[in-house]
Every structure is written in C-alpha cells, then in structure tokens.
C-alpha cells in the first residue's frame, strides 16, 4: 500500500514536470523565431552596451552623483520598510486572530485582514507609486508609501502565519495563569516569533533596495533616475557606473542582513551579543537619518499628503478610474476588453517564457555553484577548477539579481524589437540569479550520504546529477520555480512600461493619454492574472509535496 502511494507520487511529479515543460514550449510558439527578432542595429548596440560595461565612466562628477543617488535610494528604502513594519505589525496581529475571543469574530477578522494583506501585496510597488503620484503629486512619500504598502502586505502575512504557528503550550500556560488577551500577545506570542520576524524583514530589506531604485521612474530621485537619464542620453558607460553603485548597495545590505540573520539563528556564538547591539544601533541611526533627510533634506512632510487640495485631486483621480461622468468607459466596452484580454494572454506567455529561460540557465549553472560540490565534500572529487567556477557563477548570480528587471528591460529594448521577447529576457536575466542562489542552497543543505555512495561506486558527474542529486532536490526546485513565477507575474506589467510588450506597455500609454477607465480595465486584467498565477502555483506546489 505504502509502495503504491509513493510510486503514484513519483509519477505525479513526473507528469507535472512534463506538463510544466509543455506549457513552456507552448509559450515559445507565440514568437516567430528568426533573425528578425533583433532589429537592424541590435548587435552593434549590444556591443556598445558591452563596451560601457568594461569601461564604466569613472569621472568624479558621475561618482558623486552616484553616491548621492545611492543615499536617496537607501533612505527611501529604509523609510518605506520602517512604515511597512508598523503596518505589518498592526494588521498582522489582527489577521492572526490572536486578539479576538470568540470563534466567530476570529474568523471574520482573519478573513478581512488577510484579505487586506493579500490585496496590498498583489499589486507591484511601481503601480502603487504611479497611483500615488497621480493622486497626491510628486512627493518622496509617494515612493515611501508605494514601498510600504506591498512590503507591509508580505511582511504582515508572514507575521500572521508565524503567530498562528506558535506552539500552544506556553500560551495555554499563560492563559491558565490569568493573563489577558493583550498580555498573552506581548508575553506569549511575540517573544516566540521576534527572531524569525526580524530575520525575514532583513531578507526583504534587500529587495526593498532594488524596488526603491526603480521608484524613480515616476519622477523621484535615486539611482534609477540616474540610470534612466544616462540611458536616454545613450551614455552606456555612465549607465554601468550607476548600476555598479546599485550592485554595491545591494551587496552591502545583503551582507548586513546575513550577519543579523546569522546572529539571530545561531545560539552558541558569543559574539552575537556585541554584533546584535551594533546592528540595533546601526538600524536606529539609519532609520532616523533617513527620516531626517526626507523631512528636512527634501522638505517633505507627511501631513501635506492629506491637505484638502490633495484629497480633492485624489477624489477626482479615483473618480476618473471608476469612470464617473464618462460616457462609454473602457471597462464596459466589449472591444476594449477583447484587446485587453489579448494583451493579458501575451503577458501570461511572457511570464512563462521568463521563468522557463531562468530555469534553464539556473539548471545549467547550479551544480558548480553549490559550496559542497565546489569543495568536493559531496562528490568526493576535487578539481582545481571547482573554486574558480564556483566564484564565477556566484558572482554572475549576484550581478543578475542586483539589477532590477526594469533596468535590464531598458537596455534589452535597444537590442531586440519591442515585443514580449525582450520583456521575457529581462525578467529571466533578473530571476535566474535568484533561482540559482536558492537552488544552490538546497543542494548545499541536502543529505550527502547517498551521493557519496554513488560517487564511491564510480558514477560519473552526469550520473550523479541525474540519479543522485535531482531526485532529492527536484520537489524543492519545483517549489522555487513556482514561487518565482508568481513574483514574475507581478513584475510583467512593469517591464512593459519601457516598451517590452504586454499589459504594461498599454498601461503606460493609457497613463500618458489620461485615459483613466482604460487604466482601470488593464489593472483588472492584471489582478486577474496575479490571482490565477497565485492559485495555479499554490495547487501545483501542494501536488508536488
């Protein structure tokens, strides 16, 4: 009986893999594959961009601008994340239902607040930024709130999940001792989840830096703004200088977050205490510095957002989205729907192609990128090229994931013709690094004994990969693929802004033409796509388990 179930499971995975492969192949058919995909000057432009990569512009004025914009990017990210934490904390507690007494009210509060968290995180931060700028004008707060809302949504959900997963015994003990709801929360729940919450927040902080960099697209300063300016003047050497600043910033934050997470999860190390205090101090300074800069340096006040005038414009803007006083709003028009659905399908194909490409590249590179293979522990074989190859691929991963999709798209659009292929490639370029890193960690964490056995009995590298490593790691690989696909789905609309096809391109045009009801229609289609992606990915992930 057990055997039957396990063999069924094995088949299920196999069938699922085939199915996913088929979907990927289907998405490829949407493009006519030939030389025509490059436009006439695509290759020369690619060479020019590459030349800039090797010789970035290191003029003092550019470096100074890079430093200043890097600070703005960091300040917005810090400010946005600190608001996100507050939002996640409050709504997360409410969504976990730990404060409610009766079963019924717990259910209601769970559904309602989880719904809010779900909605806020389903929309990409750049879309939020665009909506905020249209509603409240160009203010750093448009960027900060646009960051805080989706990140708060993600953090809040994780926080609520953590609160729901705490072991019941300490809570029962507290209750038995007569503590109130609030007391149980403060003395029972929170101490149990703090460490995990902070470590997840630090992990998200790195993503927030990249998001903050692309916020400048709506007209706010920062590294993305400089990249955009340099690209519009076709100064590729300066573009790369700013990209390197962004990469450096991401690496620094990544390093710090790694340190904090290690300190929180490592019980035994003594130095934890000292480095923990340093981090607290540093975080406090960073948060205060960022808010001071935004409040005084940029002279922006939060309360200005809620002026009567802004409320008036916000009302007008949202009224426009709802099509008030408009004859024939786009979302009630059959032809507009047909057109938008076509774009929706295109966007879906783009996302599948993107995850397909990144899977292929990550698959080819992941084995040498794992530490336990590089040092020969897993396969019992040491080769001189293991470490250089490991370092090279890991650097490639960092490079790939540090550059936001939007920036990749802005460059790729000069090489390929506008359409969904450049969009898919930009998304793939950004995501293969993430996928590769996550996968490499899976390989590093696996049980080495079966592999060593295989290696000891003389299996070749390829054999070890297919008979030893893959069967063990495949389910987790699949989980990560599906998870990244959800993220890609949310981002497809963003790469479209720069002409990379799909819903995003029309969204940008509708924004330029102040065609508000069309924006509503495109947002509806986008939400439908995100929901479908979340649902499909969740059911598939469950099936893999």
């Amino acid at each position, binding site marked *: 009986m057990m055997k039957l179930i396990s063999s069924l499971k094995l088949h299920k995975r196999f069938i699922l893999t085939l199915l996913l492969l088929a979907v990927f192949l289907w998405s490829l058919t949407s493009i006519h594959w030939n030389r025509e995909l490059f*436009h*006439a000057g695509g290759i020369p432009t690619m060479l020019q961009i590459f030349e800039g990569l090797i010789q970035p512009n290191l003029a003092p004025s550019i470096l100074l601008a890079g430093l200043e914009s890097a600070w703005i990017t960091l300040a917005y990210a810090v400010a946005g994340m600190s608001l996100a934490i*507050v939002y996640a904390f409050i709504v997360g507690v409410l969504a976990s239902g730990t404060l409610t007494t009766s079963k019924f009210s717990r259910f209601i509060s769970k559904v309602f607040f989880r719904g809010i968290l779900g909605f806020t995180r389903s929309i990409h931060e750049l879309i939020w930024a665009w909506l905020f700028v249209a509603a409240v004008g*160009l203010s750093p707060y448009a960027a900060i709130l646009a960051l805080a809302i989706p990140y708060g949504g993600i953090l809040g959900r994780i926080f609520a999940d953590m609160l729901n997963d705490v072991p019941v015994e300490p809570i029962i003990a507290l209750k038995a001792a007569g503590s109130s709801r609030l007391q149980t929360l403060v003395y029972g729940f929170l101490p149990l989840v703090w460490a995990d919450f902070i470590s997840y927040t630090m992990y998200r902080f790195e993503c927030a830096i990249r998001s903050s960099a692309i916020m400048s697209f709506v007209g706010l300063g920062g590294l993305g703004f400089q990249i955009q300016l340099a690209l519009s003047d*076709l100064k590729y050497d300066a573009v790369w200088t700013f990209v390197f600043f962004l990469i450096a910033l991401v690496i620094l934050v990544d390093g710090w977050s790694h340190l904090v997470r290690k300190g929180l999860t490592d019980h035994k190390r003594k130095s934890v205490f000292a480095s923990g205090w340093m981090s607290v101090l540093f975080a*406090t300074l960073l*948060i205060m510095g960022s808010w001071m800069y935004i409040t005084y340096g940029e002279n922006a006040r939060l309360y200005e957002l809620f002026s009567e005038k802004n409320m008036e414009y916000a009302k007008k803007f949202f009224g426009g989205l709802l099509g008030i006083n408009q004859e024939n709003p786009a979302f009630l028009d059959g032809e507009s729907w047909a057109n938008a659905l076509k774009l929706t399908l295109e966007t879906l194909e783009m996302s599948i192609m993107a995850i397909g490409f990144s899977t292929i590249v990550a698959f080819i590179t992941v084995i040498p990128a794992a530490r336990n293979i590089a040092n020969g522990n897993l396969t019992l074989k040491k080769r001189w090229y293991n470490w250089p190859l490991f370092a090279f691929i890991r650097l490639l991963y960092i490079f790939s994931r540090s550059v936001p999709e939007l920036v990749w798209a802005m460059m790729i659009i000069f090489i390929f013709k*506008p359409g969904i292929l450049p969009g898919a490639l930009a998304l793939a370029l950004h995501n293969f690094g993430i996928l590769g890193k996550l996968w490499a960690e899976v390989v590093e964490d696996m049980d080495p004994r079966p592999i060593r056995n295989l290696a000891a009995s003389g299996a070749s590298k390829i054999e070890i990969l297919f008979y030893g490593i893959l069967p063990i790691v495949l389910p987790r690989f699949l989980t990560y693929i599906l998870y990244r696909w959800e993220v890609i789905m949310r981002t497809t609309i963003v790469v479209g802004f720069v002409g990379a096809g799909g819903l995003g391109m029309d969204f940008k045009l509708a924004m330029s033409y102040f065609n508000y009801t069309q924006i509503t229609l495109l947002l509806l289609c986008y939400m439908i796509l995100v929901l479908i992606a979340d649902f499909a990915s969740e059911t598939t992930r469950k099936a893999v388990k």
Partner: protein
Amino acid sequence: MKKWLTGIILFMLVFSLAACGQTEDKANGEKEGNKQSKSEEVFKIGAIPDQNAAFLQSGMEAVAKQLSEETGMKVEFVPSVDYSALVTGFQRGEIHLAWFGGLTSVQARNLVPDSESIVQRPRDAEFKSVFITQEGSGINTLADLKGKSFTFGSESSTSGHLMPRYFLNEEGIDPNTDFNGKPNFSGSHDTTYKLIESGSFQAGALNISVWEAAVKEGKVDTSKVKVFYTTPDYYDYNWTINSNVEEVFGGDAKQKVKDSLLSMPGNSKEIADLFQTDKFIETKNDNYEKIEKVAKELEIIK
C-alpha cells in the same frame, strides 16, 4: 538572552518610528500657517522633457531668472521626467506656467478648462517634423517605411509622435501593423536621432527644430543620418498659463508674465539656444484646434 535581544531590536525599530511621527505632528501644527503662504509665493514653471536634461535645465533656469526679474515674483523651474508628469503637475495647479508641445497643451487645457495658451515662437505657427534614416538604407519616401523598424519620440509628443503618425496614416501606413515589429517610443527627440545614428532603428521621426540644432552643433553625424521627408506645417509648442495664476498671484500677474515672455530671449544666450529663436509672439487656444482634432481621430484623447 536571544529573545530578549530581538525584542529590543524590534521595539527600537518601532519606537524610533513612532518618535519621528510625533515630532512631525508637532511641526505640523506650528508651521502650517506660514508654510502655506510661503509656498504660494513661488511661481513654478515647467517644460516637457523632450531634450537632453542638462541642456533643458540651464535654459529653463535662465527663463526663471528673467521672469523673476521682470515680474518681481519668486520663480522656480521644476524638472519632470516625462510629458504626462508635467501635465499632471499642471492639472494639480502646482505648475503655473508650462512650455508644452501642441498635444500636451491640448491635454492640459482639457484638464484645466480656463487655462490659456498665450505665447509661442514664430516657427511654432508653421512647425514641421522630419523623418530620418541611415544613409544608404534605401528609404526615400514614407511608403518605403513599410517593413522597416521605426521609432517615434515620446508617446505624448506632437512633433515626435502625433503628427508623424497622422502623416503616415495619410500615406496609408498604419504604424501599429505596417512596420517591422511595433514602433518604439524613444522618449525624446535627441534619443531618436542617436538611435538612428547608432543603427538601433532604421528610421524615425522628430522635431525639426531639435534636428536643425543638432546638425548645427555637430551633435549628429550627417554622413550617417539623412532627412528623407519633411511634413507640412502645423501648430506646435507654446507657453500655457494656468487658470489659478490671477487668483494666487494677483490680477495683473498673467499680463506681466505674458509681457515678460514676449520680451524674451532678450540678450540671454541660454534662452536663445534652448528655444532656437530670436523672438516670441502671441498665440491663442483656437490655433490648436487642428491638433485636437487629429488627436481625437487617432484616439489619443477622448
């Protein structure tokens, strides 16, 4: 020990934030009054970012300086990243005077009904676009563009998108289907000729005035890029003044601004360079009816 420590980290994060929030609220109460009147005193001008950003900045700052000297108001130039951002700022009353293209001025006046197009250059009454291609590309007429790759400027540009699209349509070419792939939107006129020069696209359309300036200043290599078609005349760029100006700056502010604009460029080289003109003339809203009609036909405005 570990839990205790993480607790502190979290509380520090939350409380340092809460502290910031409080000081902001206090500042709010004290400063609201004088801040409001102070911000109202600044007359803000903007320009569509259709050219190199640094060049636009220096020219527009010269305009701000001259306006300030002649009207006695405090004038500030506010840069914007794209055309629609400027129109939105104008709609919100945050930009009081803007140098718009024909299409953006029509969009802005639709959104702010009592605003007015007041001043233009002589050449704006008979503006043209040029279609350019690489030397030796074999493209000599608009009809030759079928099946070639093509780039417009910004999607909100009159001379870089709207009118070129209109004249292509007249020639029986549908830009959405007849090119090699969909057309690209480069974002600015300077980018357009650079993309043709570098060979990224086979042909493109841009503003004649930016093109002539680029040729004169040697910014474009004319041995590589050539003009193969120049469009008929149409009305384009103008200074559009917001409807809230008289209310905020006093009844004679509008006339003073208009007089000052008409006296430009004076002896300012920056202004003359940016606008490529030696004088400004009056204009009126009616001059842009044709642009509005074309934009409606092409379903760019409703």
